[in-house]
């Protein structure tokens, strides 16, 4: 059975942008290993010639019939649920630092 290490869980948590407590890391290492072990039964199925299904629909690209401007939500509505705004934009910390 594949046993995820706490280091691997740490790496996935970084990719997923999640802060986890030590207790959560240990628990998820155990539970995710059990789930992946359960999922390992898929490895025995012959899918060599089988295409993957990403959607059950046959339409893949749906275009608007005409490309024209419609109405969208107001700035006020767009900002009304934001944790921090300056009244005109979302306020966030800097994405890049001087060293970037």
């Amino acid at each position, binding site marked *: 059975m594949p046993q995820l290490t706490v280091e691997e869980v740490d790496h996935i948590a970084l990719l997923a942008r999640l802060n986890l407590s030590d207790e959560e890391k240990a628990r*998820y290492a155990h539970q995710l290993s059990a789930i992946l072990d359960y*999922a390992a*039964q898929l490895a025995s199925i012959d899918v060599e010639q089988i295409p993957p299904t990403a959607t*059950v629909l046959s*339409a893949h690209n749906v275009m*608007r019939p005409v490309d024209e401007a419609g109405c969208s*939500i107001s700035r006020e509505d767009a900002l009304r649920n934001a*944790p*921090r705004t300056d009244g005109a934009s*979302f306020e966030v910390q800097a994405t890049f630092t001087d060293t970037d």
Partner: protein
Amino acid sequence: MTIEPRTLRAAREGLRAKRFSSLELTRHILQRISQVNPRLNAYLTVNEEEALQQAAAADAALARGEESPVLGVPIAIKDVLSTRNLRTTAGSRILESYVPAWDATCVARLRTAGAVFVGKTNTDEFAMGSSTENSGYGVTHNPWDLARVPGGSSGGSAAAVAAGLCCAALGTDTGGSVRQPAALCGITGIKNTYGRVSRYGLIAYGSSLDSVGVLARDAHDIALLEGVISGHDPHDSTSVREPVQDYEHNLTGDLHGLRVGVPREYFLEGMQAAVGQAVQQAIEQLHHMGAIISEISLPSTQVALPVYYLIATAEASANLARFDGVRYGLRVPGADLVDTYRRTRGAGFGSEVKRRIMLGTYALSAGYYDAYYIRAQKVRTLIKQEFERAFAEVDVIATPTSPTTAFRIGERVDDPIQMYLADVFTLPCNLAGICGISVPCGFDAAGLPIGLQLLGRAFDEATVLRVADAYQRQTDWLTREPGIS
């Protein structure tokens, strides 16, 4: 004056015949909610003020002679569906104070048709769960036994319908989240074909699997609601232009010549005996009513569970990336932007949501993508093809909805795989993108309801509704009620 409409139709007839007004009916429902909801926790938000305004407007419309299947009728909405100016939490603390600026399309259609929105119902966080125990706002209790779960994730909607706290409710179904709670609460619930009802405004979990559904007392009520919410929506490119069938007109009660397939893989060794017996008896009943029963095989059934949990969690890990504390919801400030994201998400998401995001991120990460995610999508193709072959031979497929009746609160929370098994009979339908309905078909020795699942071809809701309605005309399971007051 008595106001005890048991069905949406009875409510509508009472309103038309002026036995009660929409205001009286709405006040009655709100009164029941304040009396019963503290014990059930079916509603997260009660929409009293707006509901009374909607009811008054509906009474005026009724007086003008306007008509619609839901005009003036109290409806509940699962809290993963956006409601304009009404708090929508998705059962998550990360959205505790989120108030959408727009309606989901299914909600907008009900609003236009004059429905009264009495409140938002509890759900597993982001619809991830089979018991509502993953809600950030406490579990919903099953009206038949308060120590048991109502199923999930649409457990709040199912409990509200079963306990008479609304006339019908909207739910969503990604792996069984309408049908399984409908079964565990002794009511009727439909999962629509993927693309039949717009997903616009549904807070996304697994985008290739999510669908909007309806929970109501019986199939006839569902047929009425389906006519209102179904159809193409330019806001959702995966909603289709396929014409909407006339569901109510199709409720003929006639099953002569109907071909019913019974897949042997859906009757497991370990399942509750009473469930298997009740479902077999229901299939007998369909036979007595003129249906032709045959055994079929869907060999990939047993691998649907791991396929589902790889695909759904992969999609969830991408969908839930939007909850980053920037545009809406909780923000927990950190040392830098990435730290803010991590603290916000670590604090705002509950443990099942984090578990699924972790699993999905893993399945999509370099080195594992082909082995897990792509392989799961290939097996999904096999599952879909098996259903297509089966539906060349039969018109509907009859199975149990859930392998057990309602389980005890807390019984499965520490064992994710045991919890996931609650959906073993419902999730192949989502993988194949077809439609399905759960109808009450009996009770176990403890008096807990059992559900019969009827699966239909893509865009053939009319047939599953016809079969469910015909069965309900000939059986009296719906006359038993949980009796919570």
